């Protein structure tokens, strides 16, 4: 009696597995195995051809004395600290404004989504023209309207300003995408809550503070996690905006993923670059775990 039941269950599982299999096998071969391998490599020295040598923690101790690693780490963290809150605020603001019944709402929604779908190479080219150090309109306005000294114009793509440029660019490029997510969240809030609050005499700020923000907390959680992970992964924007004559990044603009690439495929130091990748992995993991627990605790206290 039990036998057919078991086999039916097994059958159902097998059917399910067979559907998962194509994707999962691909994932294992091309993603999971390399990740596991990178963990091992982080403790080794390897150039991709010669035998692998075990190094212990030497790769990790080397990180502390590495000027470029420290610069990359600092830049990546600063970039995240700038981009995550700014993008979140900008996209939430846009979502709230474009959730009202304003005329041309569809047009504005499309316009704010446009940077996200535009090709990165094309829009960085436009940004580079706009912020061109001597001929760009931004710097021309600084000279002609604000009377800035033409000899000391800001260099938007080098020095201390390059991170600012990168942050501004990212906010502009990605706010449309997160706006859509927030819009979906906003439309999930029941209008009864706002009506009840109006009856109780709540103003706009109080409605936002006590209804919108708490109701959106799971959306915000998602947005912040995705933003943080994406920010730590920054590579293309840095190379496109700040890459020099041969694509290299200086100390002021280098970022972790670029450094990982450089160490791995230009200098063929795969062990060391895996160690840098581990640092990136641990950082993203920590941030995500903290946010996850914060969210879980908040939901418990809310209940």
């Amino acid at each position, binding site marked *: 009696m039990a036998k057919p039941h078991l086999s039916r269950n097994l059958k159902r599982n097998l059917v399910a597995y067979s559907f998962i299999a194509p994707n999962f096998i691909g994932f294992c071969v091309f993603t999971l195995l390399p990740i596991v391998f990178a963990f091992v490599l982080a403790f080794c020295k390897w150039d*991709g051809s010669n035998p692998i040598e075990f190094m212990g923690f030497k790769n990790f101790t080397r990180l502390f004395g590495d000027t470029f690693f420290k610069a990359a780490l600092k830049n990546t963290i600063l970039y995240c600290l700038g981009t995550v809150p700014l993008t979140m605020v900008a996209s939430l603001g846009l979502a709230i404004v474009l959730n009202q019944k304003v005329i041309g709402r569809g047009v504005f929604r499309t316009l704010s989504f446009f940077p996200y779908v535009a090709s990165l190479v094309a829009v960085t080219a436009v940004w580079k023209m706009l912020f061109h150090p001597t001929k760009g309109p931004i710097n021309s306005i600084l000279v002609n309207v604000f009377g800035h000294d033409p000899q000391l114009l800001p260099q938007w793509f080098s020095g201390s300003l390059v991170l600012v440029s990168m942050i501004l660019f990212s906010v502009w490029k990605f706010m449309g995408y997160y706006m859509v997510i927030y819009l979906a969240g906003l439309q999930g809030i029941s209008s009864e809550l706002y009506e009840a609050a109006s009856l109780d005499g709540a103003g706009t700020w109080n409605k936002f503070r006590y209804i919108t923000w708490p109701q959106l907390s799971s959306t915000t959680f998602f947005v912040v996690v995705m933003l943080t992970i994406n920010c730590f992964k920054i590579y293309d924007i840095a190379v496109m905006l700040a890459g020099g004559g041969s694509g290299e990044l200086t100390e002021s603009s280098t970022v972790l993923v670029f450094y990982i690439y450089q160490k791995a495929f230009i200098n063929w130091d795969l062990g060391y670059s895996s160690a840098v990748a581990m640092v990136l992995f641990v950082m993203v993991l920590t941030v995500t775990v903290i946010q996850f627990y914060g969210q879980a605790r908040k939901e418990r206290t809310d209940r």
Partner: protein
Amino acid sequence: MKKRIIAVLMCLCMLAAMAGCGGKSGGSGKGVTLKWAIWDESSTQYWSDIKKAYEESHKNVTVEMVDLGSTDYMTVLATELSGSGSDFDVVTIKDVPGYATLVQKNAIIALDDYIKKDKVDLAKFAGATDQVLVNGKLYELPFRNDFWVIFYNKDIFDRAGVPYPTNDMTWEEYDALARKVTNTTFGKQVYGTHYHTWRSTVQLCAMLDGKHTILDGNYDFVKPFYEMILKQEKDGVCRKYADLKTEGLHYSAAFSGGDVAMMNQGSWFISTLITNIKKGDYDAKLCGNWGIVKYPHAKGVEAGSTLGTITGLSVTTASKNKDAAWDFVNWVSGAEGAAVMASSGNFPACMTEDVKNAIAGIDGFPTDKQSKEALDVSNLYLEVPYGDHVSEINSVLDSYHGSIMTGELSIDEGIKKMNDEVGKILGK
């Protein structure tokens, strides 16, 4: 029944297809196929010229070219040759850092035994091969050798009434000449000189005294050139590095625009200029009247020293036809290959008087005596000679070059950083 027949037929089809594939890759017996890694096949004439000429004189050999693209050629090649899965026989070596990587990865073999066996005289490479020895062994033979010269626009000098640059100039004279021909009037702007965003255009001017290389670990000697060029930038004698980087302006566009009087660049630009002016892609009114002179030199050093970049060929460790591959490498780098290279205006590594005459005789090459004399090189220093950590050193220097040129760091700070960081690599 019908279904079964169809199934059997399909199986047969598949088997036939597989057998067909197998037959193809199995080779046809006697002939040898050499797989050769190159870049930019469509825009570079000489790859197919060499293939054709070699196959004509070696009937049993087929050369199969694989184009890996030029942008990150050495990176792609190193990836291809990692592990043991590659089936390249001959690979082209684009630069020395990439060469160092391949040698360290044991991806290419030392050619010394072959060189001894076939009695190849390395003297024909004018010392270039000595600068890429790895522990006394040679892993590549150069077939192309480009060296740096000064390109200048004669029309600009005529208009300004300034005498042309000469084959014997010091850097001070070069600087003075560039300033003389510069015009900063808006609308009639002329830049006396132009430096592309590569590090080589600035730093390597300092290597010409023969006392320094970029592997030294101490870079104080490049300071005068950073000072000279940054001062030129400030005075409007040349375009600013930060501008060029932002625009991504190519040196060929800068020179063919007709507002650059002089530019230091490699001899590869000669054939580019000739072809594009002929085709009408560059406006002959703006840049058609050009000439070349020898690279300026330091005070007290004789004229004619310049920087060079060699392009070489190597035999891979994984190759199953090493002897045939060596024969190809030897042929291309020798006199016969040199003739093929020169026919399209490119500089072969084995330079002879005939080759020089052939290049200077190409239609479109400047007809003045100076330009032809500029092809005589007395000392050739490789932009990058071989060293153990050359690839890492290159990354560090590139990065701080950018920092100095954009003004992120002062010249002294930048050079100190170079000394410190390269010192760390060398001290390892």
